[in-house]
Structures are given as structure tokens and as C-alpha cells.
């Protein structure tokens, strides 16, 4: 015991840290973790005004009409939709089926092809793991892109560990995939191609119709993560020849905690269920379907269908206003992603010679993000920006502006004004900017002597 405490103290003094119990490696990790939290999370004070919400890709506020549809099922009609013996169950079930039809109508599917899940992450997991495992006897290859959502990439990694081959297709500088490259990558033993419709970080819209036709011609199943696209651009699964589609509730002004998976019936695609249990949702996803959430999703889909054109017009006008005003006011701003093939509501701008985190901290009246919510914890620049070939320094200085149904012109003007003001201020302080003003080419500088 005496020896142990002595050796610990020695170790502590050698490493120069106060806590002798940690090893050197652990303390190194801790300092990195402490440095990572540059933007400290804190609760808003009592009378502090709330920031403007400009992060519609992370999540969206619920539409009041959706809340109105959900409330009766939270308060009064609380039955389990799978109870077959009493009115509580029957009314819950009919509400659930009505919601299923509303979701199906939005994407041009049949209600029997919709499975309710807990969100797009679960739907993505179900698609990739389910399809791969079901058809693993003869098909061992999966194709996806480098700009997919983390859940897709992680599921593919798990599949690699299970013995599958996964190809991560690179994207061009504008964020779109190369169709020729995709065609060459598809092998006779490819079971699934998974490409997201609209990217959540740069807003780029992939040519899903062409990809769908290509996959159908090669007899390969096509999955698309349409979480950011559903309700925002017109979708038709039959026109696009999509076999599986993931839908997320809280991205289209619906409740959080619900999503859906579209599974084609003709030609039938089969998956191995991830969640076993009582056989609900045709055995594909057991577990009680949360009726109020499903009703909310259905209402959100119906509203999205009615408001699609109006919202698209509104978002386009505001996004153009934002981009044009910022670009007119300050130089050296880059719009990441293809300027035409995109969803206008997701604007990802890189401000050269300005650090992204410090700009976010300066813009504390506006709720923004750099990159996606799932990668915002780490210091690394987003992998999506790296995949589209942005320079390291531009990747660090990117901000994502999300515009949605509830954004107003005043909010956009305020954001632009503040952004321009803060970028100018930060650039004044930046030595790189000084050098650029003097005419020095930054790229020609040798930063290290050895």
C-alpha cells in the first residue's frame, strides 16, 4: 500500500498533473476534451432574449397545426393502437392508419409500404443492415458516398466488420456524385446503393431519378436518406425508382422521435428486422407505434404537401436575399456546394480568413451551426466539406444558415447585418487578412522552418 501511494505520487510529479491517479495518456485526452468545448453550453438567464433560430437543418419547430392534431391523442385518445378489443385501441389504430396514408401520399407510395420508426437514424440502420443481411447469401457489396449522414456511414462500417465490401464513392467539387463512376462501381454482387437526396450540411440535391433508373437497370436496391428532402421538394418514389426511403419527423415541422421507412412492395424488397418483438408493423419493426407522434408526422406530411410550393418560394426568396446581401457586402465568401442543384434553404458559406467557431460565438444572437449537429462537438472540420475538396482553412470557417417556413425577412436582414459586421471585425484582427490586403499570397508562405 505504501509503495503504491509512493509510486502514484512519483508518477504525478513526473507528469506535472495534480491528480496522481490519471495516467499520462488519459490526462492528454482530458486537455483535448477541455479545449474542444470552445462554445460553452449555458442556460439562458432569466430575462435574456432568445436567439433567432436559423438552424432549420438541425431540427424544425413544430407547426401549430401539427400540435393541434397531436394533442387529442396525448390527452384523451390514449389507447394502444394494437389493442384489438376496445374502442380506445380501435380509434388509436384508425388514427395511425390515417397518418400512414398521409405520409404515403406525400411521397407517392401506398400506405402498406410505410413502416413507422423512431426516426431517420433507425430507418437508415434498418435499411442498410436489414437489406445487407437478408441478401448476404449471394450479395456482398454495398455502395454509398462520402458525404452521407453519420448513421449511414457507421452502419456501413458495421457491415464491413461483418464481412461485407463497402465502397465509399467520392463526390465532385460541387458535391454531386459522378454517375459514370457509380455505374462502374456497381458489381454483380452489389445488394444496395445508398445515396442521400439532399445533404444536411451543404444542401446539395443529388440526381436521384437518374441514380434510381441506373440501379433498377442493374437490379440493385436503391436506398435514399430523404430526411432533409421530404416535404421540401416534390418526391415520387415511383418516378424516381426508389426502393427504400428514410423520413424524419422533426425535419418537416413534425414531432421529434418519429420517422418512417418506405419499403417498396412491387418489386418486393425484404429486410431482416432489427428490432424483434410482438410483430407490429408487419414484423419489420416491433414495438408499440406512438400514436400521438405518428398522428403528428401524418399531419406534418399533409401540411407539407399543401404548403410545398408556397414554402419553396418563400425559402428561395429569403435564401437568395441572404446570399446576395452577404456577398455584396464582404469579399472572399464561398458558397459550398453546387449553386443550382441544391435545396435553397440550406446555405453553407465559408468566410475566408475568419475562424468559424469565433464567428459563431460572435453571432450569439443567432442560432447557427458550422457543419452538422452530430459533428459539431469535435474540433475536426466537417467530413462533408473535406469530401467536396474545400481547403482546410475554408473548411474551418464555414457556417450553415438554415432557412425554413417560419423565417422572416427581418430575421434574415438582421442575420446578414450582424454577420457582415462580425466578419469585418474579425478580419480586422486577423494577421492573415492584413497579409492578403498587402498582396501576399498566403499559399506561397512556408509556415514551418523545419
Amino acid at each position, binding site marked *: 500500500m505504501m509503495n503504491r501511494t509512493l509510486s502514484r505520487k512519483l508518477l504525478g510529479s513526473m507528469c506535472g498533473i495534480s491528480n496522481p491517479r490519471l495516467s499520462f495518456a488519459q490526462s492528454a485526452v482530458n486537455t483535448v476534451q477541455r479545449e474542444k468545448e470552445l462554445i460553452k453550453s449555458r442556460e439562458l438567464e432569466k430575462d435574456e432574449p432568445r436567439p433567432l433560430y436559423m438552424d432549420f437543418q438541425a431540427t424544425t419547430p413544430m407547426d401549430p397545426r401539427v*400540435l393541434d392534431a397531436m394533442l387529442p391523442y396525448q390527452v384523451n385518445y390514449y389507447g394502444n393502437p394494437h389493442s384489438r378489443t376496445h374502442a380506445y385501441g380501435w380509434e388509436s389504430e384508425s388514427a395511425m392508419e390515417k397518418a400512414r396514408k398521409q405520409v404515403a401520399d406525400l411521397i407517392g407510395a401506398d400506405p402498406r409500404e410505410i413502416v413507422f420508426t423512431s426516426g431517420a437514424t433507425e430507418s437508415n440502420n434498418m435499411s442498410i443492415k436489414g437489406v445487407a443481411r437478408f441478401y448476404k447469401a449471394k450479395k456482398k457489396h454495398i455502395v454509398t458516398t462520402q458525404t452521407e449522414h453519420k448513421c449511414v456511414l457507421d452502419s456501413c462500417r458495421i457491415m464491413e466488420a461483418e464481412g461485407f465490401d463497402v465502397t465509399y464513392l467520392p463526390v465532385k467539387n460541387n458535391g454531386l456524385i459522378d454517375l459514370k463512376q457509380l455505374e462502374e462501381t456497381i458489381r454483380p454482387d452489389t445488394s444496395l446503393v445508398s445515396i442521400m437526396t439532399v445533404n444536411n450540411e451543404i444542401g446539395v440535391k443529388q440526381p436521384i431519378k437518374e441514380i434510381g433508373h441506373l440501379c433498377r437497370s442493374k437490379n440493385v436496391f436503391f436506398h435514399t436518406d430523404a430526411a432533409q428532402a421530404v416535404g421540401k421538394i416534390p418526391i415520387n418514389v415511383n418516378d424516381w425508382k426508389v426502393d427504400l426511403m428514410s423520413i424524419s419527423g422533426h425535419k418537416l415541422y413534425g414531432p421529434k422521435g418519429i420517422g418512417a421507412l418506405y419499403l417498396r412492395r412491387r418489386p418486393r424488397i425484404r429486410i431482416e428486422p432489427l428490432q424483434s418483438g410482438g410483430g407490429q408493423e408487419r414484423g419489420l419493426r416491433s414495438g408499440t407505434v406512438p400514436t400521438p407522434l405518428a398522428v403528428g408526422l401524418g399531419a406534418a406530411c399533409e401540411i407539407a404537401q399543401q404548403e410545398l410550393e408556397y414554402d419553396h418560394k418563400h425559402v428561395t426568396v429569403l435564401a437568395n436575399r441572404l446570399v446576395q446581401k452577404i456577398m455584396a457586402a464582404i469579399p472572399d465568401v464561398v458558397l459550398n456546394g453546387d449553386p443550382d442543384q441544391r435545396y435553397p434553404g440550406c446555405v453553407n458559406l465559408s468566410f475566408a480568413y475568419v475562424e468559424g467557431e469565433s464567428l459563431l460565438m460572435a453571432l450569439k444572437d443567432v442560432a447557427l451551426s458550422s457543419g452538422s449537429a452530430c459533428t459539431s462537438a469535435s474540433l475536426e472540420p466537417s467530413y462533408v466539406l473535406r469530401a467536396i475538396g474545400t481547403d482546410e482553412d475554408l473548411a474551418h470557417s464555414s457556417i450553415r444558415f438554415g432557412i425554413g417556413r417560419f423565417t422572416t425577412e*427581418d430575421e434574415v436582414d*438582421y442575420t446578414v447585418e450582424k454577420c457582415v459586421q462580425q466578419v469585418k471585425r474579425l478580419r480586422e484582427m486577423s494577421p492573415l487578412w492584413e497579409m492578403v490586403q498587402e498582396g501576399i499570397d498566403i499559399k506561397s508562405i512556408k509556415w514551418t522552418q523545419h
Partner: protein
Amino acid sequence: MAASSREHVLSLYRLLLKESKKFPSYNYRTYALRRVRDAFRENRTVEDPKVVEELVKRARDGLALIQRQKWSSIIPTIGLRQVKLPACTASVSGVHRCVCVRVCCSVCGGVC
């Protein structure tokens, strides 16, 4: 039909706008005002009585919805203030007469 007469539709429009102004949340309020205004403007030239009746019914449902929902969103927003936008001037006007004065008086409304 009397129910869809011009006066009735106009009074429905005024009521909808009046109720929409009572949303405590800035985003919901501005959206409701904008949507109501644009919807009525868009359907100004509709002649077919069946379609008109359908639209009036939808407007009436919308009105009931706003009346219900503004109460369900008042409770959680006690003490909620939003960033003051410089473009808005009507911050303390007669229309912001609502239960939670603290909520509304410093929140700018997108008054149309």
C-alpha cells in the same frame, strides 16, 4: 349564399388576423399573419361557389385552430423574450393585448 358573402369573408379575414396577432411566439405570429394574408390574396378571384364554400370552411377551421393553439403556446412561453429586430417599430401597440404582458411587450410583432 349568405355564409360566403363578401362581408362574411372579410370579417373572417379580419378575425383571423386579429387572432394571429395574439401568438406569443414571434415565428408563429409572423407566419400566421403572412400565411393568412397570402392565402386570402391568392384566392381573391375564385368564383366557383363550391370552391368558395370549401375555402371558407377551411378558414373557419383555421380560426378555431389559432384560437386553441395560441393558448397552448402561451403557457410554456412565460418569460420568453426574443431578440429585438431593428426593422420592427410596433413593439408596444394596442394589438399586443394578451395575458402575459411580460411576454409580448418586448417582442416585436410582424404587423402587416
